[in-house]
């Protein structure tokens, strides 16, 4: 960030990341092994598959669904998911007539324990700026056309409260088991920019 020499080409972000890692490592302030563990945890364990398991269980277990909508954090923890950016998770349900969609206009707050790190479109200024002002237009650009009678609620995540959307279970999936439903549940549907499709 700080360019002390003025006119020369600034160092790339990649080079500055390497420089910072070196500076902190050589003074023993960080351990690259710990860094690798953090990275691999978010690449392999903490992602939208966790949220998909929550949703599939809620679709097939009415008592779990009730608990999830009453106390999202506790019900999600029942499945083993908790941690950073998931201190207090509120789950809201999308139906044929009500549609919730989540944004963070001030940074890119996102429920990491159930969805992992946010995708690029969620962090993009256009999404952050426009979703709170013209959600129907933004959803349409993203490929989701909602009928005129669908009531939209935008959830701007401005505190440490995190929102998870429980999408509507698609028609034609009545015969599927909880395990068979999991792969159908997309990250995008759990943020509210898509619906879950039967296949």
């Amino acid at each position: 960030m700080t360019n002390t020499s003025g006119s020369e080409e600034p160092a790339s972000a990649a080079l500055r990341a390497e420089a910072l890692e070196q500076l902190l490592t050589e003074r023993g302030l960080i351990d690259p092994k710990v860094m690798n563990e953090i990275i691999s945890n978010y690449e392999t364990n903490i992602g939208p598959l966790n949220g998909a398991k929550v949703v599939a269980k809620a679709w097939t277990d009415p008592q779990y669904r009730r608990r999830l909508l009453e106390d999202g954090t506790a019900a999600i923890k029942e499945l083993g998911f908790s941690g950073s950016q998931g201190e207090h998770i509120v789950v809201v349900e999308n139906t044929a007539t009500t549609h919730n969609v989540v944004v963070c206009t001030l940074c890119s707050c996102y429920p990491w324990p159930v969805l992992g790190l946010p995708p690029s479109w969620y962090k993009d200024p256009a999404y952050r700026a426009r979703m709170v002002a013209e959600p129907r237009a933004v959803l349409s650009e993203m490929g989701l056309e909602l009928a005129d009678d669908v009531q939209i609620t935008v959830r701007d995540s401005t505190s440490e409260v995190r929102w998870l959307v429980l999408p509507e279970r698609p028609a034609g999936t009545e015969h599927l088991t909880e395990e068979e439903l999991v792969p159908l549940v997309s990250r995008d549907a759990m943020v509210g920019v898509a619906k879950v499709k039967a296949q």
Partner: protein
Amino acid sequence: MDNIADMGGTLGWGHVYPPRGDEPTFGKPWQSRAFALTLLSVRISGQNIDAFRYAQERLDRAAYLDDGYFGRWLNAAELMLTDSAILAPGAVDARARKLRGEDAPEPPIPEPARPDYVPTARGSLRTVDNPPAFAVGERVRAKDMSPSGHSRLPRYVRGHTGVVELIQPAAVLPDTNAQFQGENPQYVYTVRFGSRELWGADAEAFSLTVELYESYLEAVS
């Protein structure tokens, strides 16, 4: 502080990216390094998540935008580390230039000056003795104010009236916690606003909720 991070309702950003199902967690290797470095830098600098967001808000436009989300994380990490005197200003730039073969003199390591601050508990949730000042269903107004430091009160709701939908657990107030001036725990309210209250008569029909800390709100008489 009004700044570039407060993007709600701002213009000129163009179209949204359509979602891609196969997007990797980190598009480039440096982004994964920046992510882990930043998480660790919050700890090394003796700061907190609110200070991290405040550091992002103090970046200039290029430092905030040019290298995207992980670029602003990296820049904010550097700012926290220099503010706590773990690194000297210019240290990262000098090392980066050295890495690409330039003869860049490196500044000496400073005497660390971490903030004099200890959180009262982990995380942001706290218990408070007083009852919530506002009730579910009550009409409330977001104060029309522009705090000088960090704030989680978006510009686009200031001065507007909504209805309390949910009372959320009490939490540390980011405004003061970001600058190590105390936790000031207070209730957080999910407040529902109508789109026409926020954006005028021609707005799309929808409603919106925002989590607002108790001190951001006033009663509507």
